């Protein structure tokens, strides 16, 4: 019996030579070789080191203060956030109630033993969400390809066919394909995400592969 490290769940073993760490960096075994461009801070998990509690608070406020408009101080309307979100405005007296208590939702991927959490508030469209999930769950074969991905308009998640699709569970408990509804509506209804095998996604058929849906980003596909 193998002497040492034991583990509960199953998993595939990565190619020994290169490991994707979910950061856009690849490591060759035995030596650390950072990609020459380095990670951009908005591509890296957990950086900058700001508590998720604080990030949610600030992001939620950015949405709120935008709608207050001139009521407040001479707040510049092209505010600090480069991601421009419009949220429905509510009564002045009450505060906008967020979906759940945080912007983080759980993401599970078929075949992987444990899930992650992703901060939906950190994204303003499906593309960036898909890229973030790609970073979290998939292994790019080289760092060079990751850099190429950044520069592309669309990540590998959104082109071609794949054995995986991105789905979500909505407030009613139904599993839907990600990408069909406007982003804001999605934010208001998503409870959790699942990267599902395409074969299992047949139950979502009504929206799947429909040609009269909006052409880009109709469904998000993931490459293994």
């Amino acid at each position, binding site marked *: 019996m193998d002497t040492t490290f034991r583990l509960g769940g199953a998993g595939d073993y990565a190619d020994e030579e290169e490991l994707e760490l979910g950061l856009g960096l690849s490591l060759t075994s*035995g030596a650390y070789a950072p990609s020459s461009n380095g990670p951009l801070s908005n591509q890296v998990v*957990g950086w900058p080191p700001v508590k*998720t509690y604080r990030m949610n608070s600030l992001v939620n406020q950015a949405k709120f203060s935008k709608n207050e408009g001139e009521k*407040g101080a001479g707040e510049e309307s092209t505010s600090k956030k480069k991601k421009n979100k419009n949220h429905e405005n509510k009564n002045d007296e009450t505060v906008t109630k967020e979906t759940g208590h945080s912007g983080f939702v759980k993401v599970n991927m078929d075949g992987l033993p444990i899930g992650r959490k992703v901060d939906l508030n950190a994204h303003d469209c499906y593309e960036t969400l898909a890229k973030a999930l790609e970073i979290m769950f998939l292994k790019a074969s080289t760092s060079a390809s990751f850099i190429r991905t950044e520069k592309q308009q669309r990540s590998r998640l959104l082109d071609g066919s794949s054995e995986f699709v991105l789905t979500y569970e909505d407030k009613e408990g139904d599993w839907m394909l990600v990408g069909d509804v406007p982003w804001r509506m999605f934010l208001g209804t998503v409870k959790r995400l699942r990267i599902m095998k395409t074969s299992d996604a047949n139950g979502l058929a009504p929206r799947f592969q429909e040609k009269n849906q909006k052409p880009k980003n109709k469904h998000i596909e993931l490459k293994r």
Partner: protein
Amino acid sequence: MVYSLPEEVLEHVFSFITSDKDRNVVSVVCKSWYEIERWCRRKVFIGNCYAVSPAIMIRRFPEVRSVELKGKPHFADFNLVPEGWGGYACSWIDEMSRSYPWLEEIRLKRMVITDESLELISTSFKNFRVLVLSSCEGFSTDGLSAIAANCRNLRELDLQESEVMDLSGHWLSHFPDTFTSLESLNMSCLGSEVSFSALERLVAMSPNLKTLRLNRAVPLGKLSTLLQQAPQLVELGTGAYSSGIRSDVYSALSKAFLGCKELKGLSGFWDVDPSYLPAFFSVCSRLTTLNLSYATIRSPDITKVINLCPNLQRLLVLDHIEDSGLNALALSCKNLQELRVFPSDMYVADANVTLTEQGLVSVTQGCPKLQSVLYFCHQMSNSALITIAKNRPNLTCFRLCIIEPRTPDYLTHEPLDIGFGAIVKHCKNLSRLSLSGLLTDRVFEYIGTHAKKLDMLSIAFAGDSDLGLHHVLSGCESLKKLEIRDCPFGDTALLANVAKLATMRSLWMSSCAVSIGACKILSRKMPMLNVEVIDENGTLNPKLDNCLVEKLYVYRTVAGPRSDMPGYIWTMDRDSANKI
């Protein structure tokens, strides 16, 4: 001949010794002192809940009244620790409920606690007084209802930054009519509305209420009502700080603040409408703590406030304060001890926000008592860091985050080694340091050489080789907590310093260059350490010794390997330790 004092006298003497460190020292003087001390220890602090077991704690300290536990590694705050990692309070609460009937205080940080445990707390400890759940999760407002309903002598309920499942705002109503002991309530983390009538009722029947931190959902219009009921408040956290254009709200608020003669600390300020700021100006001269770090107001407004607060000791603020606001701070607040400046935009330097290293330099120059700094910015220079170090050798905590990883000195384009080197050289009492920017192995040489009092070090995207880690592990005598991410540190340094790890609380290394083989060796050599390898992606092949680990968490323990590890954590199988 040795003449020894009677036990009762020793016990009485020991009762004046409250610091954990001193207590620990006392307990090792001799066997009888150990025995006497353990029977009269009332407070226990456990910095890593897995370092010891509840049974061991209870066996040694049978008469404890206050327990503080910390669970997940610090980097869990930044989403680096996967779900299900651990830090469960359950077994602790269960055993304490059986063995500590007189327990009064429980403080948990970064732990998972369930409603069942909260209910158990509420019914097990007749004299329960203080519950602090800091950055915890796993419970709902139902658990809070149980606490409210059953803890007759509750003084403090603090849910700081916890993730609470908000099932109902009515948990506050569960405090009975006879409940008058509340001194401190922090519910700022709750997402949805609480029943305002219940809140008002609670405040009205709590004459000893000193700290009240509301959540965002409490509208500004209601704040004055609460303040009128509780003019004795010392610390207040507002809810949302805007209300449209309502002069009646403003004047009521202003009047209410005027009545708060004891107020020393303010926080909250979500969704700030600057036109309401002057409402609290009457309390500014007394303020020692001000947390504006959720207030998205601009520099002129912030500066106006700061200029009214000469007694400020602690300021938390967003980078909207800009250099100009920090200059004002340096001029006005000579008693400042702690400054935290948070980023308003996580990723991109906002062209409209001029916060640079100069602001920090000003504050270190103008505020002679400044000890603790947390500063997020986009640029830094060695010369600024050297100036800071020379200005403020009394710094004990210096956490600098230059937002873009590996950013060099913006003036010289060099690494920031000598800047941080100056910090550790001049600030001889530095106990906490967080590094950022472009750094080579040299900075670690400086740290190993000079940072002799350093207790906690956080490193990210830094260093060139194992030598960096080796400098730290071999040089920093007082180091207890080391957390590292994305650095080229690996096996050699780790294995050359195994004994050091047993003197530390914990080591975290993620996205570094540590191999599974080294982890095996470490485990074998150091049975008093738990060596936990986190393999989220399921890609680890433990048979391949040179396979790199994603995340490594090593900590000393007397409790052996933990039994609640999730499936993605690998550890050494002790039974087969002898095989290789």
